[in-house]
């Protein structure tokens, strides 16, 4: 329901808040709320109900004459790109796929970030006698771990890309923007914006804290025989923090990314002549 209210808000936000417009907004909102409640009662999923209500809404151009704002609207339909406009169904499918696959994608990137960790630590640990193996074996185990982690990450990305494959033209920007879809996507992004902002703040704090151990070990252990080992531990700690940061940020950024993608079609390529 919040998406619907946000959608109406953005529709009307471009116009002066006259009493007549306020009244129209309130009545249209009541109509949309009723429609939404009706669809939910029919057993539709929330996402589906929201999409249906927005699809059935129509556009303000039609209401403009009765509201006396006719001259203000109507400039939005001149976007004549060669690519067909993105439809709300496509956009919703794309957003759903992005939402479904967000954990897989972030897990894959976390694995990529962590994949060299063992390769970095083990040979140094072996050299300093902490583990009873030779450097060679340490390097070999490290390489194996890197390949396995990167391989699992690739498999996860592949699985995710299979789900977003039907929406390839959106991912590649081969569509022209559709004002209804853009507004819907902005409302969606707004709904998830608070979580994204918080994740972004956490990730920034982590990024600032990440190099501290490495710096501390380098500065305080300068005469110790363990300096190599601890420096390496510091590097691995940094990798882990990067991975955690990705794990926090990526799953919360999908709605924002979807809105960015849907708002920016590729006009340059769209104008190509046949």
């Amino acid at each position, binding site marked *: 329901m919040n998406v619907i209210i946000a959608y109406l808000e953005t529709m009307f936000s471009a116009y002066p808040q006259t009493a007549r417009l306020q009244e*129209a907004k309130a*009545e*249209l909102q*009541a*109509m*949309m709320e*009723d*429609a939404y409640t*009706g669809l939910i009662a029919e057993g539709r999923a929330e996402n589906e109900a929201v999409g249906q209500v927005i699809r*059935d*809404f*129509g*556009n*303000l151009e*039609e*209401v403009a*004459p*009765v*509201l006396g704002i006719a001259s203000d609207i109507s400039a939005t339909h001149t976007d004549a790109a060669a690519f067909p406009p993105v439809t709300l169904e496509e956009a919703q499918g794309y957003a759903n796929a992005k939402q479904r696959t967000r954990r897989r994608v972030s897990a894959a990137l976390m694995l990529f970030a962590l994949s060299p960790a063992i390769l970095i630590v083990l040979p140094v640990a072996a050299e300093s006698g902490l583990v009873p193996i030779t450097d060679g074996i340490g390097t070999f185990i490290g390489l194996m771990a890197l390949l396995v982690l990167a391989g699992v990450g690739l498999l996860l990305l592949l699985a995710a890309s299979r789900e977003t494959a039907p929406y390839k033209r959106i991912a590649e920007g081969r569509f022209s923007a559709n004002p209804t879809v853009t507004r819907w996507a902005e409302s969606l992004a707004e709904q998830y914006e608070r979580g994204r902002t918080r994740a972004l703040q956490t990730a920034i704090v982590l990024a600032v804290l990440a190099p501290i151990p490495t710096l501390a070990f380098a500065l305080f252990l300068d005469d110790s025989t363990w300096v190599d080992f601890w420096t390496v531990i510091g590097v691995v700690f940094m990798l882990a923090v990067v991975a955690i940061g990705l794990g926090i940020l990526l799953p919360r950024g999908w709605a924002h990314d979807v809105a960015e993608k849907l708002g920016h079609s590729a006009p340059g390529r769209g104008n190509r002549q046949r």
Partner: protein
Amino acid sequence: MVISADAIRGYVDLMVLSLLRSGPSYAYELAQRITAISGDDYAIKQTTLYSAVKRLESGGLVSSFPGVSPSGKPRTYYRTTDAGLAHFDLKVAEWRSTKSVVDRFIEGATP
């Protein structure tokens, strides 16, 4: 066959007035009833219905009054005026002759 919004635009007023003859109603219910009666042939956009109702109101063909929904929400109700009823009869007559003229071309027969 789905009817285009352009084809039916001139007759949304007639539909609204027809529904309001049986008693006052509010915008969402009007849209629901139009969609239910039309089956899959025509789904009215909420903005189309809203502008039709407002146009009728400013023309004095329907009047509005504040009401409350069963769940307690404030809601604007509409009812036809006498002018609205007269306009309805006029629109019905107009539709009959429109239909008959168009039919003559479709049948391809001379009257």
